[in-house]
């Protein structure tokens, strides 16, 4: 399971995640155009907290995958993430309509009849040891949680420490 946990109430809209994601894109693709900040694969919608963090949750039964008429969105072979093959994307907006987090973002592409816009979304920083957005988030609003299971077991343990200590006083 991918390594992202999102806790919107903790977000202060500092924007570090956007910069880190965009910088990561720019480095990985070597695209250093003036609009590099636009390459960020997540958005944080304000204008004030609570924020709406538009970041892919890599759902297990992802509605975007169900709705993708071009099969550009799929669960990848390892079943770890929802991956996007943007060369297949036809810009039909079906995933935009389905994603409850509004995580798919529009990207303008030039040329190619009928494909003025394609979709971009988080790839889970597959090539990196840790997702960049989580690495720079100062409040834990986006966390690299290992996987969802270990996040759950850590919370259980934290709580149990409290219970156990009370019980053994």
């Amino acid at each position, binding site marked *: 399971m991918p390594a992202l946990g999102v806790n*919107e109430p903790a977000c202060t809209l500092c924007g570090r995640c956007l910069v880190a994601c965009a910088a990561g894109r720019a480095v990985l693709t070597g695209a250093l155009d003036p609009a590099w900040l636009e390459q960020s694969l997540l958005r944080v*919608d*304000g*204008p004030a*907290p*609570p*924020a*709406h963090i538009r970041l892919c949750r890599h759902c297990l*039964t992802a*509605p975007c995958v*169900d*709705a993708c*008429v*071009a*099969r550009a969105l799929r669960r990848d072979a390892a079943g770890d993430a929802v991956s996007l093959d943007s060369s*297949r994307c*036809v*810009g*039909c*907006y*079906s*995933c*935009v*309509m*389905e*994603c*409850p*987090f*509004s*995580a*798919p*973002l*529009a990207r303008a592409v030039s040329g*190619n*009849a*009928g*494909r*003025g*816009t394609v979709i971009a979304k988080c790839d889970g920083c597959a090539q990196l040891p840790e997702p960049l957005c989580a690495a720079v988030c100062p409040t834990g609003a986006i966390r690299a949680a290992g996987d969802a299971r270990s996040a759950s077991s850590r919370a259980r343990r934290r709580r149990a420490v409290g219970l156990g200590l009370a019980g053994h006083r």
Partner: protein
Amino acid sequence: MTRYLIVGLNVAGIAAMKAIRELDRAGRIVAVSGESHLPYSRVLLPRYLAGGAVREEMSLEPADFYRAEGTRVIWGRRVVALDHERREAALDDGTTIDFDRALIAAGGSPIIPGHLAGPGVTGLRTLEDAVLIRERASAGTRVCIGGAGPVGVKTACALAELGVRPALIVASGRILSQIADPEAASLAQRRLELHGVEVRLGTDISRALRGRAGLEALQLSDGTAVPCGLLVLCKGVTPNVAGMPSAVHGRSGIAVDGMMATRMSGLYAAGDAAETRDLIDGQTKVTAIFPNAAAQGRIAGKNMAGATAVFDGSLPRNALDLLGLPLISIGLVAAGLDARHAVRATRTAGSYRKLVYRDGLLVGALLVGEVMDAGVLQARIRRNLAGSPGLREPGQLMGEAG
């Protein structure tokens, strides 16, 4: 070992196949596909017609998906009779297949009224249809489209991209009348006209005028005639239910319960052939949209393989790209608005957004131009319709300020 039969192999059938494989590895699956091609995405046919998608990109699954162990696909055959008593399906080549549980996912066929049927009149449902339309249009044949639902409009866009100037003949007073209100429809219409589509509103096709060279013109109900060498009818699809036991028939398709099970044990239905409850009006009907077929197929597959999964009902929704102008329609947006409903509409240059509330709860969204938060709105609509209104309000949504 359970013997599964899947009648019709497209979005719903494939989703069911995946679900069954996941839960019952020992089962034997036989699928009957009406076409000989690898199953492809029908929604992409307008793009294919316009040359914007190639054949391989349209495949729903790679070829080896259908060759997995325990799976057999019979290509280019139809099930002509399903004998529930003997648990046996008869194919059009005379062979039979035995089964324990069967899924009817045969989809639908374009509606072509008898008085128009004949040479020069087609739907857009298969690759062959798309090839025919592209060839005729490229050769200079004047193409008319009958019906301006999502498929008709997308076909018009595709032909406009090809550089031909199609005529869109619309019986209703506006295009996209089921999914858009007059304001959104006029924005969409302007976009079509800008790209050379001729839109004729409020007039129906009463007769196809054929000469020696085939179709020559269409006689319209307003008394005029339009020259036409090829008529593409996009007036919806009718469920393919022929050969299925009459006990499972509903109003037009196959009647199913929440588990996608028909009245006959072991018989399930999903996709464009199945009638489900509409979440907005509570009516039972076919809601022939792509994501519905995938969800229903998966749920049917799970139940067939012994798990329990329940389909909530269908939320009518559509997303369209009108030559660069996105339009998304979710839930209740135009028809059936009464005193219980309140509407909030916002307009900016190039965008129109309308949110519909029932008793204070969001039940519909119609977005043109600025659509990127549609998913959040859809999730809220679903929660509201499920009777558990969103407790956590998401951050302020676009167009909802104040």
